């Protein structure tokens, strides 16, 4: 493997996504507007409902996770979406790069944006509601963010696969899929409150375990043994599956001609 070429492929996508992110107004809304609105409205709701500081922290962790995963996942989906929108899909698949370059480059930008959002929302949560993201410690925080980013990667790559498989019709998945995952993962509630069949599905989602592990440090008993390890193992499994699905979708698009239909 030529590591230099590998890194250049990733760097190309990274620079492209970063430049696009800096010049489009909808990126600003993703980065600032919706996350801030989310934390403020949920935080104010916790006050209205007179939740204890621990309960408020539980809900705010979910709100912040929603924003971080959402932004990072969208950025990964932009690996394909930007080219679908600009109808330049064929050019990147004509170049000697693989889908790993596309998704990794986008993921790095997604993590930078996700970290920026997390820092911003953490400051806002601390200033407005006294919520301290560092209370569980740096290690727990790192594991939580890693879990968010890994889940975002999995969902983002799956969205890329769906778009490559079904074309523009699948665009809606880019915005809808992560919300479905977060609802199932127990964004504002413990998984134990879900009906059993749904709770079983929730236990198959890696983010469930990362949320559980982080919230345990805010005084909520963990529902799982070794949640971080389980979350990492599941993430690795889904990451491999999502990568394979995207690869298969590109192969199919080359056979059906969809790759050309999504180009100029």
């Amino acid at each position, binding site marked *: 493997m030529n590591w*230099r070429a590998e890194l*250049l492929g990733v760097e190309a996508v990274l620079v492209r996504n970063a430049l696009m992110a800096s010049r489009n107004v909808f990126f600003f809304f993703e980065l600032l507007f919706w996350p801030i609105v989310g934390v403020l409205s949920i935080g104010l709701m916790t006050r209205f409902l007179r939740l204890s500081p621990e309960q408020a922290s539980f809900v705010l962790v979910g709100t912040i996770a929603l924003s971080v995963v959402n932004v990072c996942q969208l950025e990964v989906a932009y690996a394909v979406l930007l080219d679908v929108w*600009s109808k*330049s899909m064929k*050019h990147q698949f*004509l*170049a*000697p790069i693989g889908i790993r370059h596309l998704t990794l480059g986008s993921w790095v930008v997604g993590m930078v944006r996700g970290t920026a959002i997390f820092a911003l929302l953490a400051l806002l949560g601390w200033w407005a509601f006294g919520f301290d993201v560092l209370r569980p410690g740096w290690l727990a925080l790192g594991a939580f963010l890693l879990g968010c980013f890994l889940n975002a990667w999995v969902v983002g790559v799956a969205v890329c696969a769906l778009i490559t498989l079904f074309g523009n019709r699948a665009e809606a998945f880019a915005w809808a899929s992560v919300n479905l995952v977060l609802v199932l993962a127990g964004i504002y509630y413990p998984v134990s409150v879900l009906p059993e069949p749904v709770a079983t599905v929730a236990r198959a989602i890696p983010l469930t375990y990362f949320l559980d592990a982080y919230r345990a440090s805010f005084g909520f008993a963990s529902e799982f043994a070794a949640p971080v390890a389980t979350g990492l193992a599941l993430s690795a499994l889904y990451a491999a599956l999502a990568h394979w699905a995207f690869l298969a979708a590109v192969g199919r698009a080359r056979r059906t001609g969809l790759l050309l239909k999504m180009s*100029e």
Partner: protein
Amino acid sequence: MALPPGGTLAAAQRHSPGANMIPMVSFTGMLAIDARDVVKTFRSGWPRRRETPALQGVSLAVPRGAIFGLLGPNGAGKTTFLSILATLLVPDGGSVRVLGHDVVREAGALRRRLNMASGRPSFLWSLRVGEILAFYGRLYGLAGAPLRRRVDELIELCELGPHRRVLYSELSTGLKQRVALAKSLVNDPELLFLDEPTLGLDPDISVRMRRHIAELRRDRAMTIVLTTHYMREAEELCDEVAFIKAGRILARGTSGELKRRIRLGEVIALRLDPPTAAWLAEAPGVLRCVAADGWVECTVDEAEKRLPELLRALHVEGVVVRNVQVREPDLEDVFVELAR
């Protein structure tokens, strides 16, 4: 090993209808493209599947260093074939070797050596011209000073200097096409595919674009395969052309060969007073007669023999001949004949 431009193209004609079969082995290394019996069918619709045959056994050999034109009406299969050659589309059947690589099994290695530009280019709207070229340069393994040098070269070559920092969305059609051409040269490809490279361009820009394309072959010994609707463009640029219709190659050869093979004859254009003479179509040696823009154009089997006969007959009939032009049929006439 490149063939001299316009040189031993006959070596590649073994796939042509009616061409003499030439032993395969000795020419394989000289070929940029060696496609045999390529079949592609598009399937759409659910639950009722509709099948659209796009290519029905296309065979084509293109020698290295040539400019080769693919001509044909809309929906003939030109772009489908080009996309298969460029590894963007997988054929259903047949075999395709490009620059010695199998387009399906060795697509990765092949992609480093070819590139493509389209006459309807589209790139990311919020990137500047220089950034677009740098992005694709990185995808092809360039970085640092070599990348900057390459981008500078391409911007100079395609006369994009004043537009380097302009967003793609703000460029005119002609400039977008120049960006597409510059992008297609970013990896200095051995084989370049141009899909309708001058589509929708103003005539002066088209002339410049054609000049660029001719220079690419002259200066870099690049093999170029282009599709076009403009017969003049094909005639001016291409060493050889192939006509595709309904997924089949109907004819291939040099412009002169095709005109001879299809026996289009020559055209005698007459400006008459009175302006028409219907009986001309029945005159000996006249294949057909068309009146347009005040001219009567008679396609004849042999102009040298028929012109005096026609002039004599017109004089006898009392028709005044105000102007006469004799010309060879152009590629457009061949196209019209084949597309019929």
